[in-house]
Structure formats: structure tokens, C-alpha cells
């Protein structure tokens, strides 16, 4: 039977997965908790944050492990994780993924960035940062990020047996999707072997990072009665670029015939148009570019484009989207 390396005051070893819907963190969490209990003899619980948000929105999965005799009563989200798994480093832009970590927690990040850069980004003092390029592995193996992350997690969670997780992978896929079994085992193995670690010694006397519970922006004194939203259209303030799972469209102005097929296809209204004079001097609409703040990378526009003005491309950490973003010019209300 597995022995947990450390536990909190209630006897739990706690893992939090931070992800965006669609990368499979929910399933990874289920498989991880299942394997800990079924395959490794621990007691445990696994659950996810559930909401109305869909694929592409931030989600969390939680796993608690304890000795088989320990009674599990706590149903609340994990605030002080021993291990955090971040499924997409773009999350670091908008979410404090490292909230509540201990000075010696391990944070696994799916990223192309080096550990010290990630440490800066997450503003953590000490602990271990593990990095794996799970997106690359998943794209190469035609699988999902989650199995690569599980592979890397099993290097960190060395009290769990990787072979038993491979059995769990088999059991999960073999009935419905038998052709996914082998690619997923490969993906798991690559995650396991390709993850790299760097440990940072915390500054003397540094305290565990405080966890910040989500606080609503509004309250009973400021919320208009009945839940009415009196500033509709305010969703333009959101940044949805984290929804992209590795791909995005590129726009080639010189090839565009301004047919608006992309504008019809785009579910997220990312295409920005401007009125200019055409060759004969008459006012006409011209496609100016893409507002990548809202682009979720579905690539419907690339499919719809009758010429080659839109092409699909991998998204790297090279700032392409920021550099080439053409922001919408909204008719903003004056805010005094």
C-alpha cells in the first residue's frame, strides 16, 4: 500500500488541478482519484468545480488522498494544495493558480517557458516547479493534454504506481474508444519522462502563501435588485484568449477579398471592420483584422475563407496574438 509523504491536519494529501474546460482536467482528476483509491489502496475523493461555463473557461479539479482508515468529511474546495497542476500557462495571466501553496509545494505547469520565468509569473518564493510541454506532446500524439499532465504528475506523486495508472487509462478508454488506448499510454509515458524539475529554496522564515477566497465584485448594497444587469454588453471586458488550446488563425491582408464569410462564421465576433473608400471612391467595408482578445481558436474562419486570407497556425509564447491584435473600437460609455 502507498504511504503518503505528507498530510495536512485532517490527514489529507491534497492536489489541485487548474485548467480550462476542454483540456480534460475533470477527467484527469477523476482518473487520478480513482487510481489512488482503486489501484493504490488509499482512501480519497475527487471532484471538480462545476458551473455554467463551457469548454474554454477556467475550471478546477480537486483530489484528496488519505490513509484507508481516515474518514473523509470535507467536501470543500482545496485551498492549501501540496501539488498544483496547471494545464495551460496562459491561465497565469488571469488566475492566481498558486494561491495557498506551502513553501515546499510542487507546481507542475504545462508550458514552453523555463521554470524561473514561471516562478516570477506565479510570484512564488520557494518550492519545486515542474515543467512539461504537454500541449506539444498532445499535438504530436493526437491526444489530449490531460494524459501528458497525468504522466508528469505521476513523477511528482511518487507514492502512486505509474503502471496502475496505465491500467486506469486502459480501463477508461478501451470500451468506448479502443484506438485511444495506445496513444494515451504513450502520452502518459512521455509526460512522465519529459517533465523537468527545478527546486527553489524559500527565503528564511517564509510563510505559506495565503489562499484568497473568491470574493464577488458586487454585494447586497451594490447589486441592482432582482439580479438585473444594468450595464449589459460588459462581457467585452473579458479576456478569452486563454480559451485557445494551441492554435489560432493568422490574417493575411493582401489576400483578403472582404467577402465577410469569416464574419458570418465567427462565434465570438472577433473580426474588426472599417469603412474606407474603395477604388471608385465609394464607402465600403474592409476587414481590418482579428481581435484576438476574444478568439478561442476554433478556426471556423479558416475553413470559411474562400481564399487564403486566413490560415491556421500554432500559437507559441512569442506574443504573436498581442502584436497582431486589432482591437474592436467599442462605443464606450463615458465613465466619470
Amino acid at each position, binding site marked *: 500500500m502507498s504511504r503518503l509523504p505528507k498530510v495536512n491536519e485532517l490527514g489529507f494529501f491534497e492536489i489541485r488541478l487548474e485548467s480550462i474546460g476542454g483540456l480534460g482536467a475533470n477527467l484527469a482528476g477523476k482518473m487520478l482519484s480513482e487510481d489512488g483509491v*482503486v489501484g493504490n489502496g488509499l482512501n480519497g475523493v475527487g471532484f471538480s468545480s462545476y458551473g455554467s461555463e463551457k469548454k*474554454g473557461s477556467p475550471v478546477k479539479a480537486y483530489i484528496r488522498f488519505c490513509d484507508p482508515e481516515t474518514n473523509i468529511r470535507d*467536501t470543500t474546495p482545496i485551498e492549501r494544495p501540496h501539488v498544483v497542476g496547471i494545464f495551460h500557462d496562459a491561465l497565469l495571466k488571469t488566475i492566481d493558480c498558486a494561491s495557498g501553496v506551502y513553501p515546499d509545494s510542487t507546481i507542475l505547469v504545462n508550458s514552453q517557458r523555463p521554470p524561473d520565468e514561471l516562478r516570477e509569473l506565479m510570484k512564488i518564493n520557494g518550492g519545486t516547479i515542474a515543467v512539461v510541454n504537454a500541449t506539444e506532446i498532445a499535438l504530436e500524439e493526437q491526444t489530449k493534454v490531460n494524459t501528458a499532465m497525468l504522466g508528469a504528475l505521476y513523477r511528482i506523486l511518487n507514492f502512486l504506481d505509474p503502471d496502475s495508472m496505465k491500467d486506469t487509462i486502459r480501463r477508461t478508454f478501451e470500451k468506448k474508444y479502443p484506438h485511444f488506448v495506445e496513444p494515451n499510454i504513450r502520452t502518459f509515458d512521455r509526460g512522465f519522462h519529459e517533465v523537468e524539475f527545478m527546486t527553489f529554496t524559500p527565503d528564511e522564515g517564509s510563510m505559506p502563501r495565503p489562499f484568497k477566497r473568491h470574493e464577488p465584485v458586487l454585494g447586497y448594497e451594490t447589486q441592482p435588485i432582482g439580479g438585473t444587469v444594468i450595464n449589459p454588453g460588459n462581457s467585452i471586458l473579458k479576456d*478569452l484568449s486563454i480559451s485557445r488550446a494551441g492554435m489560432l488563425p493568422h490574417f493575411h491582408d493582401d489576400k483578403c477579398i472582404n467577402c465577410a464569410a469569416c464574419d458570418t462564421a465567427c462565434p*465570438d465576433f472577433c473580426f474588426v471592420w472599417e469603412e474606407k473608400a474603395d477604388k471608385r471612391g465609394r464607402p465600403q467595408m474592409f476587414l481590418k483584422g482579428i481581435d484576438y482578445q476574444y478568439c478561442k481558436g476554433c478556426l*471556423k474562419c479558416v475553413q470559411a475563407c474562400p481564399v487564403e486570407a486566413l490560415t*491556421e497556425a500554432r500559437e507559441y509564447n512569442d506574443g504573436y496574438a498581442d502584436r497582431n491584435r486589432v482591437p474592436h473600437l467599442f462605443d464606450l460609455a463615458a465613465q466619470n
Partner: protein
Amino acid sequence: MSIDVNQEELLKPGGAVEQNIVFESGNEMAAYAAHQINYHIMGYYPISPSTEVAQFLDGMKAKGEHDIVLIPADGEHGSAGICYGAATGGGRVFNATSANGFLYMLEQLPVQSGTRFPMVLNLVNRSVSGPLNIHGDHSDLYFALNTGWPILMARDPQIVYDMNLIAIKLAEDPEVRLPVIVSFDGYFTSHQKRRVQVLKNKEDVQKFIGDPPTSFPHALDRENPVTIGPYMNEPDYINNCYQQSVAMYNAEKVFERISAEYAQLTGREYPVLDLYRMEDAEVAVFMLNSAAEVCKDVADRLRLKGIKAGVISPNMIRPFPQQKLAEVLKNVKAVTVGDRADSYGGYGGNMAIELRAALQTHGNVSTKVINRIYGLGGKDFYADEAEQFFLLAQEAAMKGIVEKPFDYFGHAPGKTENAPQRVLNPMKKEDLNTGLITVTPDEKTGELKVKIPPLRSLTKKPKRLASGHGACPGCGIFSGLELFFKGIEGDIVALFHTGCAMVVTTGYPYSSHKATYIHNLFQNGSATLSGLVEMFHERKRRGELAELGLSDDYTFVMVTGDGGMDIGMGPAIGTALRNHKMIILEYDNEGYMNTGSQLSYSTPMGHMTSTSSVGSFQNGKPFHHKDTAQIMAATHIPYVFTGTEAFDRDLLKKAAKAQWYAKNEGLVYGKILITCPLNWKSKDELGQTIVEAAVNSCFFPLYEVDRGITTVTYDPEEKNKRINVSEWLKLMGKTKHLLKEGSQEMLQQFDQEVERRWRQLRAKHESPYL
């Protein structure tokens, strides 16, 4: 489904019967118990978070693991009807629901308890609300208190399983004969995977529950015809109610009897009250379901500090264990009652009110009762918060007085500087009226002539929906809706039914609707908007809107998914028959995608959803898709159309016509087929390609019905574009199995139905009289 835990290293479960250990969630355990009981019938309707119960049962059914007949209803009212009808037939009946769905079936529940037909309903607790909230609290449960159904509580997945086995036996007991509710917390219990002990053999389950008693009349005994549900006035009615009241109180002692039997069998014992460290407790917290468990950890901690803390959580709240509670509180100085729902205006949640009544009835005037409303709409309840509940009790015990007997807990005032301020200016009238779209009736024939510009010119027109909504990548809803809206000039007031489009555009405090928008639950949007339409015209007639600068009429659009046209069919038809000046626009993604892809009546035959699983014993949805456009055409409204974003100009023209009809003649119904990449299991980028193939296969013909006259607006055969349905089906993961060997018969059946409907439509196109 259920995964066996390796038991070698674990303590053997107690009890006389052989048991297994599985690792599963509360919903799974409700389904697991149901499949072991092997109910005859389940009539169900999807609603979060209970939906999974039917899904798991469907999955098991596809593998041949049980014989339960699973009936997908048209709504919860329908599902309750199916269950009631089935129960009158003397067999075993099961259901699961939550929240507003529970309220929609509420009317049926006293009918069933009053006529005394047992069944088991799992109520997966969730908030009953407007503004919509899908998370766990007890506001649905509190509506159950007066239905006449005994209510068993389950704090974790183990108890969900156990209570389900006890519930059916309790319901059928000759001294009870009442339908029974098993209540557990949405998400906290329904979706958390835990280690659970289960009876290993179905035979042992069957032996425990026994055969249903045969001594009661039912509807399927020809030698003993009976009248079920007579018209009963006073003085008889009160006697029926009295019988029911007696039966309800009987349920407490019958529960104790069954529970003792169950304890012998399994080693797990459920007294009426779950008491934790109450023997010598001076302060206590009273709480229902999962949050009580959190309090137990805290009681342990407080005990270490010398505070005599305990936790009370009833395993049964109907009948309310009044005397037992009075007994256990006899020496307790103060108790904080946490109610996870309010009884607005009652100076307490229902549990606090009933607990105070219990103390008063049994002459306890010394125990102080503090009440707090907590955890509404799924707000987590943490250990440090539970500690505050104990502190409240301690304070009252010390002071001998309760300073604030009733309050909310966990609500926040908010900061003035964060108060909402307008972000966008309202769209400009002149931008919305491009003048580029014209609809003119022919002077002689009255036939509408539509002119539309190139789509390029319409990119200048503001989009009605704002970027920043939370739909999945590649979602077809928004491209479909916006294309339709592009064809409409001027202002729109929209009502969206519950569904993906609603949920992802209005996650508070955000909204992606630039113009005015309303939500109502998806059985009732048509009626709701028709009310607003008439209010508009009447206020306009009375001159009340002049000062608001209203120069043009609104175009009123009710947006629904295909699910909303199942559960909302009645109000939609009523609205059509009344012929209000508005548009009903259905986005059809062939299923209940918002709740996790359950089958709707619009799901085509053979398609895989989470309630039409594919396996050796089942091959996707067993019956044909609903032809909603033809149903609506049969109401003889002025205009009916179908469209997709793959045929942009076709849909744009229809939108322009729809607006003209809705302003001049009355109701319009339109159906647009849109892609759901997530649940169609298709590539995000192929959205248009798939719906185009659906049109070209003649599964989804593009046509319109103008004042009863049918015109096919795009004929794939004429254009030489007709493809076989399999060419369309191969583009989606949800239909891959239909192209495999063994599915030929079903595929052929589907193909023939598509062809028959297409030929019929062609005939209508040919003749103005069809």
C-alpha cells in the same frame, strides 16, 4: 460503470452479506442502487445536477446490466406523469430530479401521495431560483416538505446508496404505502467520487427489498377493476388526508425497523437522527446533508479545546423526528440551526422553525436556538465557517440570550466603488436601420419581395451580441443567431430560454446582450414574451411609451434550443394559436447540450447522446427526430422557415421576411440547425461543413411556409448537390457507429424516413393546397 476497489488491503465490511467496495459519486450510487433494485420504469427529464442518474442507467442499459424501461419525458411534469401512471400499474418506479424541475412536477406529487402509490424519487438538491443558479442548496427540498412524501436524507454517496435500498422498502410497506424522496446535495454529494460499500449480489438486494406487496389494488388487474382517483368532496376528503397523515407518521417507526434489518445485513446503521458526539454536548450545530459532515471535523477540533460540541443531522425529515430531537436537545444549552434555504418572511428557515416547534411542544424552554441561512446557491461552507456556527451557540449559552435569532450568513455588502456602471452606449438607431434590407408585398399577389445587400455591407451593422461570451470554441449558436439578427432592422427585444445561449451570455455580473434581454425557464418563454409583446402594444396605445423616445416598434424574438421546444411545446403552440406579433427562433443542436448532451426529441434516430448510449443492447436513440417546423406550420401561423449559417443569404432573407411578418401579421417560427462540436464530437472548424451536409442530405431541408404555402428555398437535387445521409453522418463522432456493420438496418430506417419527409415536403412545394 462502477469501479471495484481492490479489497485485499482494506478492512472487511461488517454485516452478514457479501459486499464490494466501489469508488463512485452520489449520482452513480443512486443509479447503482436502482439497477440492483431493477425497477420496472423510470420516467425522467434532464436537469442539473440529477441528470447523471438517468445517464448512468442508460449506460448500464446499453450493456444489458438491467431491465429498467427508461422513458425520456417532455418535461418534469411529463416525467412525474409517467411515473405516476406506471406506479398505478403495481410495479416499481424510479425518478431523479432537481430544483426547478422538481417544482415543475410539484403538482403531481400530492396526487401520488394522496392516492397512495409508492415509488422512489431522488431529489438532488439544488437552488430554486430566478436569477438562474444550478448549484446545491435546499430550496427545492423545502418545497417537498408539504407534498406528503416521506423524505430520507443522504449526506454522502454511501448513504445515497443505502437510503435508496431502504426507500423502496419503506415506500411499499403496508403501513406506509407512500412515495418516498431520497435527498442529497447537488454537486457536493452528487458529483464527488467516494469509496462506497455495496451489496455484491443483486439477489441479496432483491432478498432484502422483497417482492412488492400484491395485496393493494392496481390498474392492471382485470378481475378486480378499480377507480383510481375519484372526485372527492367534503366530508370524505379530510378522512383521506387523515389516513395519509397516519401513514406518514408510521413511516418513522417503519424506517427504524427496516434500518435495523439493513444494519444486520450490511453493518451500516441509520438511526432517525445522525448524532455526532452528542452524548454530553453543551453546544450543537443542526444541519442537513453534506455540510453536517464538515461540522463534525470542527466538533472534533473544538472538543480538543475542551468545548463540548456535537452535531445533529436527521436521516429523515418527513416525518419530522420531533420527539427524538427534543430528547437529544434536553441538556444542550444552545444549538445553531443552519438552513440552506430561506422560508422568506418566516423568521427562520424551515428546519429552524420546526426545531423550535419541537422544543416548544416537548416543554423545552431552556435550549437556545440560533438560526442562520447559509450556503445558498452552492456557496461552499468551510470548516472555519462551521466553527463560527459553534461560536454563535457558545455565545448564546454563555449569555443565556440569543441576540440575533435569525440572520443570513456569508452575504456581503459589496463596495460602492464597484457598483455597476454602463460600459457600452446603447446601439445607435441609425446603425441598426441600414436601409439596405427591404421587404415589400407585391401589390397584386401580396407575395413578399425581399432585397438584401452583400454580407460585406452588413458588417457595418452592430452585432446584437457582444464578444466575451463563454460559449465553447466553434459553438454554432452565436454565428447562427447573429446571421439571423443581421437580417433584422431596428431594435430587438430578445427573450432566451434556459440553455447554452442563455447561460454563456449572462454569467453574472456580465452580460453579452447589448440590447434588452430577458430570461425565463425553458418551458415558458413563448408565453412570457407574448405577455411582453401585448404589454408593449397596450402601453404604446395608451401613449405611455412616447416619452421614452420610441420611434419604431421593437421586433420581439424568443430564442430557444430544441430542448425548449420539447418542454415548452405547449406554451409555444398556445402562443402560435393566439398569433402574437413575435418570432420564435429555435437553434437546434439535436439535444440538451447545456446539461451534458441528453437526447431531445429533435435528436435524430441512432445518434449517440448521454441518454441514448451505444452498446450491445442499444444503438443510440431508438426513435425518429421531431419535425418541429411542421408541427408549428400546422398551427397556421403566417410564417415558418428553416435555415442554417451554411446558406447565409437564404437565412438572411428569411430573417427579413420574419421581421415583416412579425410586425404586420403575427407569429413567426424558425428553426436553425447549428453545430455543437463538443457533443456532436466533431472538429471545431467543421461547423458549417456539417450543417451544409445535413441540408444536402435532405435531413434538414431549407424551406419556408408563407401563409400556408410551402416553398423549398434550396433544392440539393436541382443543384446536383444531393448526398447520402452517411456522407453527413461520417463527419460526427456521435454517429460513427451508424456507419459500422450491424447498424445497416437502423441506418436504412433513418434514411427512408429522411427520404419520406423530403418527398412529402417536395409535394407540398409543388402544391399550394398541401
